């Protein structure tokens, strides 16, 4: 009896030390990487890196100003495109379509999409936004289409606001009239969008041709949308249903409930999701390789190929020059610190917000 107890205790000790050992071994590599990036990165950091454009290959000096600016620009526009779409879609499946099969399918599919290989996203965006199909410039077409839709939605919002303001003081007793007014606002918006498209199309269609910054931003937005969607959905589900019922009881419409009650209670969580999605795409390289491509020169024009820090790191690290390697390490440090910083911010928001909730 005693012997088996002893044996079991020894086995337990061995197994526990093994898993402690595994943990130490794993952590060792991870700390090794961080330490190496910091050590080599600091050695390569200089003010020139941020203030100068790349020198010709083989020439010492120069910096990566164009890549820093390009990276910021691409991530900024990816956020502008991806975040509203993600939040709106998340709102739809958490509010309007709550509990339906459609919501479930979209939710599961976007969970899968979060982990779809980013290089596949790159090839997909390449074939719709970069590569012309025969004589049709699909990229330009979709770009103008997107632009007109956005303009039309903004126009519709303003029109609706104005109409609301005017009609607020007039009593309309007939529901049919209300419907008619709604319909006419919608029709005007659609018509406005169509006209915008027709006017803008010949002017802008050939602006985007070949590799361009918009394609890079769209590829990153493609990766951001499911991340934002899922966090928005989770955060909205956390808002207690009774809170909405209280607002409904006061006669608020669903839109007002979402805008003034649900978003207000979930805003911290949604912002955290947005920050996390930015940290997810800020270090992506693969989807940019054949969308925004690379550019040795300084440009802020999103219609052209545009340099990004990550693609630059790839090119420089694979290149033959010692000076390039140094700059690649320094950029790697900058990008790692940036991502770790925003991740820490997001995590501490979660901790602060939900830690407080728990203690209540």
């Amino acid at each position: 009896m005693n012997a088996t107890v002893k044996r079991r205790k020894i086995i337990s000790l061995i197994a526990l030390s093994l898993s402690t050992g595994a943990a130490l071994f794993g952590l060792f590599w991870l700390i090794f990487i961080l330490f190496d990036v910091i050590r080599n990165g600091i050695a390569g950091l200089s003010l020139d890196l941020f203030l100068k454009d790349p020198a010709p290959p083989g020439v010492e000096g120069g910096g990566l100003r164009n890549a820093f600016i390009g990276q910021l620009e691409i991530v900024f526009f990816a956020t502008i495109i991806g975040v509203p779409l993600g939040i709106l879609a998340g709102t739809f499946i958490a509010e309007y379509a709550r509990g339906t099969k459609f919501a479930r399918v979209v939710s599961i599919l976007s969970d899968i999409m979060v982990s779809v290989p980013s290089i596949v996203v790159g090839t997909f965006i390449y074939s719709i936004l970069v590569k012309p199909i025969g004589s049709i410039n699909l990229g330009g077409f979709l770009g103008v289409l997107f632009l007109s839709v956005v303009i039309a939605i903004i126009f519709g919002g303003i029109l609706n606001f104005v109409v609301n303001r005017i009609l607020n003081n007039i009593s309309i007793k007939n529901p049919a009239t209300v419907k008619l007014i709604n319909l006419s606002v919608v029709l005007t918006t659609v018509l406005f969008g169509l006209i915008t498209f027709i006017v803008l199309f010949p002017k802008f269609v050939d602006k985007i041709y070949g590799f361009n910054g918009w394609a890079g931003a769209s590829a990153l937005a493609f990766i951001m949308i499911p991340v934002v969607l899922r966090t928005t959905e989770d955060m909205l589900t956390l808002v207690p249903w009774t809170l909405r019922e209280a607002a409904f009881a006061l006669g608020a419409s669903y839109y007002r409930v979402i805008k003034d009650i649900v978003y207000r209670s979930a805003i911290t969580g949604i912002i955290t999701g947005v920050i996390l999605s930015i940290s997810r795409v800020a270090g992506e390289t693969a989807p940019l390789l054949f969308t925004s491509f690379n550019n040795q020169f300084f440009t802020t024009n999103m219609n052209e190929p545009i340099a990004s820090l990550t693609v630059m790191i790839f090119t420089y690290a694979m290149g033959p020059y010692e000076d390039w390697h140094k700059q690649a390490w320094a950029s790697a440090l900058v990008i790692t610190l940036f991502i770790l910083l925003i991740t820490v911010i997001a995590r501490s928001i979660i901790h602060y917000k939900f830690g407080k909730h728990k203690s209540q």
Partner: protein
Amino acid sequence: MKRIFKVPFADVSFGFVSFLSALLILILIISVFIVLYKESSPAIEEFGVLKFIFTEDWNPVKEIFGAAAPLYGTIVTTILALLFAVPIGIGIAIFLSEISPSFLKTPLGVAIEMLAAIPSIIYGMWGLFTLAPIMKNYVEPFIQKTLGQIPIIGALFQGDIMGVSLFTASVILGIMIIPFIASVSRDALNLTPNIMKESAYAVGATKWEVIKDVMIPYSKLGIYGGIVLALGRALGETMAVAFVIGHNPEINLSLFQPATTITVTLANEFTEADTDLYLSSLFYLALILFILSFVILAVAKYFLIKAERGFKR
């Protein structure tokens, strides 16, 4: 009393716009399939499915393309990376949930989450500049001298050592997916009800027996989900591998030779493809990768949903 009818335009249009956004997600996923299939159709017609998968040649000059070499590289690196990362990841998870003193749990947990956030290009670059020389000078010669002498297994470790190899790529990939496995498994292990652990302790189980016979069976599905999720990530990883695998479209039995994966082939050749068939074959590779990872991620999701349901019961 004056009744005021507000025009509920905002209500309707907000619902409609948000519905369109949700629909866009579905449309995007379906159009990835359609677009990749359409782009790769010339190559599908030319090479067929089985012939493409089992042809080893990748010759842009003669326009003969086969996916065997990149597919082999992808599968081998993924399997090796999992062999490396799964025990360590689960070890970390067990350490974090049961062994670690409580003041270390939060900082270590945060450290793991942060490491999962480091971009893959950093892992790749570190692999090229730091790990590859270590592999070349110390690890690979050592393995060659020991394991390489055993008759049958030895064939895996032959050839000139360059540091840039299938083996190095697998190690980098393994290091990269450790945090994923660790954090998902830790979350799964933490969901074991305390009362179950306590009852096991009460009948005299040792700590390891509680972990092995109570916690792991209870959180099995969650751990499987984490592993399959990591598998999906490893399959589609580009940058961590691109630096250290050497992009050599051949199948070598030896793990110490340069090889290639689907993602690396795409990253290196996509912008250089000059003929339609060449580009179309690359799209074909992307399609295969997309389908593979989609199926694997769906399986992971299935495990995780099942695990969640189990916990709720």
